[in-house]
C-alpha cells in the first residue's frame, strides 16, 4: 500500500480525467501513482460537474 497526498489547494484526478478524487489516495500494489495527476480544486470541481453532466446524459 502506498499513500499519496496532493499539494495544498489541489486534489487528485485520474490522468484521463475520467474521475475526480480528494487529496489523499491509498494505492493498491497493482495500481500506480502514474495513473493520477494533481489538479487545482476549482478546476477539479469544474471537471467533476462536467463528468456528472456527461453521465447524466449518457
Amino acid at each position, binding site marked *: *500500500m502506498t499513500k499519496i497526498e496532493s499539494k495544498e489547494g489541489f486534489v*487528485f484526478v485520474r490522468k484521463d480525467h475520467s*474521475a475526480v*478524487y*480528494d*487529496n*489523499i*489516495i*491509498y*494505492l*493498491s*500494489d*497493482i*495500481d*500506480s501513482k502514474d*495513473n493520477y495527476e494533481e489538479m487545482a480544486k476549482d478546476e477539479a470541481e469544474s471537471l467533476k460537474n462536467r463528468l*456528472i453532466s456527461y*453521465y*447524466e446524459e*449518457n
Partner: protein
Amino acid sequence: MAFYSATGTKLLNLPEQVQKNIDDIAELKESITSLQNSKQDVTGAITESNLQAKIEDIASLSLKEVSVTGLTNTGNTVNNGTLDQEGKATAGGDQEVDGNLILNSADNVVDKDGNKLIQSAALDDFIKRYNAEAYQWKFAGACINTNEEGSSNFNPSVSMSDIVNATNLDGLFSKAEFRCDVVFPDFTASRVNFQTIVEQATATKDFTITFGAGNIFPFNMMLSASSTFYAHLTKILVADGKTCYLTPYSTNAFWGCQSVTEIGAFDMSKSQNNAGMFFGCSSLKTLNCVHWVKSFDISASTAFEESDLVEIISNLDTVTTAQTLTMGATNLAKLTQEEILVATGKGWTLA
C-alpha cells in the same frame, strides 16, 4: 320452404334470398369448424336485423385469423389475455398450441405456417400480458397504493405477478404516484431493463423498493423522477435469500436518491461499469452490495460510520486489475490503516 338458422333455430318467414344467405352461412361455418387450424366461431342468434352483419362476419373469416372476440384453438380459447388451459402459453418462450406456434414477441404471433395472426383487442390484451416488451409503461400514471386511501386512480388489475417474465420495464412507473412500499417479484429473464422506470414519478409517503431474484439492467434506473419521489424513497433493498444481479453495467443506477439510507445486497459481480451509480446519494449509510469487481464512488455521502465502511470493504472481491473505491477524504479518515490494508490487499485503491 323451411327457415332455420345455422344453429337450427327456426326463424321467421324470411325472403328466399335471406334463407339462401343463411344456408350459405351454415355451410361456411361447417367448413371452418371442420378445419384444424385457428378458427373463430360467430356466436349469437341470427335474426333478420343482424343477418347482414353475420354474413359479413363470416365472410371476413379466413383460416388463421383472429376476431375481435378471441382466438380459438381446439379446446383452448384466448380471451382477455388468458388461456383456458393453464400453462399452455406463457411468456419467456415460444409455445405450441395444437400445432400453432405462438412466438413470444409483440410483432410475431404466427400460426404453424408462419402466417401472422390478425391483431385484435383480445390478442392485444394477450400480448400485453404475455409479451415482455409490452410491459413498458404498464403502471404509468398509476397510484401505487396498497390501501384505500386516495386510491381512486389505482388499477386493481395491476399486479406485480404479471411482470415476472418481463424483459423491458422501461418507464414502468412513469408519472406514477408512490404511497407504499414496492416489492418486485423474482424475474425469469436473463436481463430485465429497468431504465428510467420512475421518470416523473412522485411520492407522498416514505416508501421502500425491494427486489427479488433476477438480472436487473439498472442503467439510469432512478433518473428523472420528481423531487417528491427522491424525498420519500428511503431504502432500495434485496429480499432476504434472493440473488439479484445488476448487469451488465450500473451507470447512474441510484442517481439522485438523496434520502436513501440503505441499499441492499445486490450482486455486483456482473456489473462492468459503476460510474455515477451513487451520485447524489447523500444520505447513504448502509451499502450491502456484494462481489464488487469494478470501481465505484460513494463519496456523495459522509453518513457512513467506520463499521459501514468496513462492511463495504469486506464485500470487495479480489481484483487483478486495479480498481478504485472512491469514498472521499472524510470517509477515508474513519478507517484504520489495517482496514485500508484489507482493501488494498484485494487490489483496490482507496481514494
